[in-house]
């Protein structure tokens, strides 16, 4: 299972880097969502995929009896998903505004903040 996850994460990273190298802002954004999910998966897998038993302690005991799933990476991934979703929503709206302001999504052509010498 770990091997499958590792390959998936690698493939996702590769695909997202390919997308993020594009000059089109939209493709960059898709790359960014993809890489966020790749990172989430890697957090999940570093928590050791041992068992799927919930980490609950039976009544009267002080520790779980059988080996249980690690709850911490799941909490971390949940937080990271929420944050990533918020950031993606913002970036999407920003891209929309950029498109309405400049009429293009090619990052090379958006040079208002840093004009070339011959433009000015």
């Amino acid at each position, binding site marked *: 299972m770990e091997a499958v996850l590792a390959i998936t994460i690698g493939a996702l990273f590769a695909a997202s880097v390919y997308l*993020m190298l594009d000059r089109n*802002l939209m493709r*960059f954004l898709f790359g*960014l969502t993809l*890489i*966020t999910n790749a*990172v989430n998966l*890697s*957090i999940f*897998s*570093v*928590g050791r995929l041992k068992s799927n038993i919930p980490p609950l302690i039976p009544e009267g005991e002080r520790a779980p009896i059988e080996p249980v799933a690690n709850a*911490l*990476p799941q909490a*971390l991934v949940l*937080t*990271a998903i929420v*944050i990533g979703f*918020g*950031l993606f929503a*913002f*970036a999407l709206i*920003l*891209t929309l*505004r*950029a498109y309405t*302001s*400049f009429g293009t999504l090619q*990052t090379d052509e*958006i*040079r*208002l*903040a*840093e004009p070339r010498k011959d433009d000015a």
Partner: protein
Amino acid sequence: MSWYLSMPLIVPFATAIISYLLRDRAVGRWSSVLGSVVALGFALLLMAQVLQNGIVAGQMGNWPAPFGITLVADYLSAIMVVITGIVGVTIAIYATGDIAPKLEQLGFHAMFQILLAGVTGAFLTGDLFNLYVWFEVMLISSFGLLVLGGKPVQIDGAVKYVALNLVSTVLFLTAIAILYGMTGSLNLADLGRIVPNMDDTGLVTVVAMLFMIAFGVKAAVFPLFFWLPASYHTPTFSVSALFAALLTKVGVYALIRMFTLVFTHDIAFTHTILLWVACLTMVTGVVGAAAQTDFRKVLSFHIISQIGYMVLGLALYTPLAIAGAVFYLVHHIIVKANLFLVSGVAERTAGSTDLYKIGGLYSSAPLLAALFVVPAFSLAGFPPLSGFWAKYVLVKASLDLQFWWAAFAALAVGLLTIFSMTKIWGEAFWKPHPDRVEPTLDLLGWRKWRLLTPIAILAAGTLIIGLFPAPFFALAETAAGQLLSPEAYIEAVLGVTQ
């Protein structure tokens, strides 16, 4: 439960809610000022606690470390929280005159306070994942502040800012994942105990490099700084000043924290890279500044070159050098915020931030000229201002280690800083205004004192640090001592001795 650790965080959040609810009224902006003053008060209380008891650690929800969420304040954290409070108060006052009511209705003050909360949280947290969360709090509010008003130039700056900062966030999270996989812990103190004793130093170095790149983007070091001069000159002046003062410093703080507490396994390798990064950052930043002709762009490039000095202090890794880095952090936050605030007044009186389109500020606004000279000379390192001592300590530290070229780079960059400051001086202040207008301070109208008071306060701060450096330097030295021997930090958090 140590309430003085959480209060500097709770107050800005509460202020954000209040000032958002009152955003349609004039009282909203004063609630933001008042909230900042209260936050500064709590920051000073925390500082007093730290001065009295040494390192203060608190476990939120009474979960023992390393399982719960830890807030911890050593000297460095406390100093940074206090300086954040000071910057918060001064820029909140400035914002009452600078921010148009339309932007206030969009929630400027709420985002401003949340940014302060994020910065304070990043300084106080003792947990790596919480550091990530605080970075995000800071990041999302800075996105909001950056595009507030929605001018096309702001959108353009924000695209670059958002893109590169999100990439750095992804790298940061990846590094956290790998480190967690290796150690099974996210608590900084716990990591500080585990990581230096790990067998596989190669893998640790890989993770260290990932963290260095992630924080390097945040701190805008060479060669990762391109988002900064692309965006910092676009938002309102209050926002520029706030970003310039605090955001990059959080990156530097995170670098200092990680590379003194956790990644000390292979100093010869990691800190040599930092040394090269520091020198190249200093040089490229100041060369970039020399090429610019916009007030705020010159200042933006100067942030980069000054970041180099702080990283230099970390890279040299001696008690004197680290103390110099801490001293430099404080000095630079005050000075840089001040310079951006001055640029705001210059734009309001002379009509532009383009240096070729303005002038005459010296003859018609001598008070502003005097207030500009203090931070500008301090940035370049003239005695007896704060920048002189900060640079002196770092140069001395590099000479002690016989890094002649690092000392030479630091001194040469100081000289070049003067060169670009004289450019601002000559163009904006000395030469007559090209349109023959007299940019007097009376043009500011009712805003005059709201804009000038914060500048005067920060200039006074620079002067005080410059004239009486001994107590401030003693603080920085204690902070450096704690950073270089993290046993006390680990003990305060985990409650065990090694």
